[in-house]
């Protein structure tokens, strides 16, 4: 255990070292002005300043709040809808084309309408994250429900397990590992759209930090924001991953 952790730590440190080196090399070779491509040192200073002043924690807090609100709303509604649609052949056959056409549309294309219906501030970010997370969860849930092992359904018939027991005793748990997989995908896509979501009328959050710093040509803060988004995204991903592994172990 100890040694696996050390091994990982060494890898991560090597990764960081390589990244910093490449970055600095690009600056030296390309001879880019500091204003257009800040050096690692400058970005480091930026990060320290953000942390020291505590500003970053506010941004992170707001972003996480928006993210989880949108994400959880998406997960709940998509799973619920998916369970129903996965079991009703005909309705899904009609819903499917709608979903398929709406899915490839970037959430940012919807902003005029999001502002119209949901206003400004927290809501556009939440709605955009919702949209981004909704479709992967819906589609995996429907697929999971459709793919529930025939044996379980036959078993339920045989034991005369009827709805609603059938749903929560058999179908939901049987589909759950696949659904969790969908949750995993959704956390990634949702987080990616955080920046886009916080472009519309937000006055705080990591996405706002990036946009605002970009306007002020503080590219060091842009990169600092990117780093925070990356690391937080990684942590979110890892936690779902642990959850997924745990579910996998439970279901074996």
């Amino acid at each position, binding site marked *: 255990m100890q040694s696996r952790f050390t091994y990982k730590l060494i890898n991560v440190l090597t990764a960081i070292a390589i990244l910093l080196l490449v970055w600095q090399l690009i600056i030296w070779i390309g001879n880019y002005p500091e204003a257009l491509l800040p050096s690692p040192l400058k970005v480091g200073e930026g990060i320290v300043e953000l942390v020291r002043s505590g500003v970053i924690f506010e941004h992170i807090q707001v972003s996480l709040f928006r993210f989880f609100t949108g994400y959880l709303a998406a997960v709940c509604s998509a799973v619920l809808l998916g369970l129903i649609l996965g079991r009703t052949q005909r309705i899904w056959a009609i819903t499917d084309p709608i979903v398929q056409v709406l899915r490839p549309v970037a959430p940012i294309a919807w902003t005029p309408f999001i*502002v119209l219906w949901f206003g*400004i501030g927290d809501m556009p970010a939440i709605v955009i994250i919702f949209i981004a997370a909704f479709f992967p969860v819906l589609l995996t849930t429907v697929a999971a429900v459709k793919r529930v092992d025939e044996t379980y359904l036959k078993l339920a018939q045989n034991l005369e397990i009827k709805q609603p027991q059938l749903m929560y005793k058999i179908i939901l748990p049987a589909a759950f590992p696949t659904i969790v997989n969908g949750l995993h995908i959704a956390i990634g896509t949702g987080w990616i759209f955080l920046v886009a979501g916080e472009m519309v009328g937000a006055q705080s959050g990591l996405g706002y930090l990036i946009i605002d710093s970009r306007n002020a040509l503080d590219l060091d803060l842009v990169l600092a924001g990117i780093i925070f988004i990356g690391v937080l995204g990684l942590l979110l991903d890892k936690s779902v991953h642990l959850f997924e592994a745990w579910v996998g172990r439970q279901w074996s």
Partner: protein
Amino acid sequence: QAGEKSTLKIGYLPITHAAPLYFEKELNGTYAGGAEIELVKFGSWIELMDALNTGRIDGASVLVELAMKAKEKGIDLKAVALGHKDGNAAVVSPEVDSVEDLKGTSVAIPHTLSSHNILMKRMLDKGDMTYDDVHMVEMPPPEMPSALATGQISSYIVAEPFGALGVTMDHGKVLYQSEELWPHSLCCALVLRNDLIQNHPDLAQEFVTGYKEAGEAAGHSHEESSDIHKKYLNVTDEALELSLGWISYDELKIRKEDYNVLTENMREMDLTEDPPAYEDFVDTSLLEEAQ
């Protein structure tokens, strides 16, 4: 002296404030050595500034504050002329009758680094309020009329034609014109990269000369000019007419006293720490040469 230049890439946003640019393109698109103006349309200021800062375009009609910020950060830009004079209306929802009515509501500007921010602050001053009394949001200009219509904001100040659009869509009215809040305000400016001015002085000169003439043409409202406007902006006649009534393109020189008022305001509002000096940033010689 660098080699010949075949295209002059100038960035803009489809707003009335950029009118002299597209009038110039329409009236006289080619200059010395066959250099052609290529107008590059952007979706928002942020991308336009990225392109300008990295030298992917040679110049742009841009919010002067953004260009100042870039200059402050070490990008060698020169503001050579204004985009327009006046023409930023403070639009409020119909039920707002005075500045005091804005208390506790949301007000929108496109950007902290914009004259609209300063105008908004000055408007609040008129009602003895500060930004602490309202909820200020930055939002993309095209979203503002609908946000006003649905009551999410009670006022906005932004580049034209979005103000006029708000008014003509019957969801807003004008509370103040910019000259009532800030006489001789500076807003959008024609900014060129200094390397263009240094390496292709003749081209730059011809371009600015054409720009000045185009500005004069843009101001005259007759059918032909309205066609040009409508080629670059998608607005109704009504909104265009309203918009052009508020704005003028005659006197495009950036005057030192106006610039100093701007820097003073920006400093006051913490928008900048070390604004570029007039002499470093503004280059009126090209415009004067055109006289």
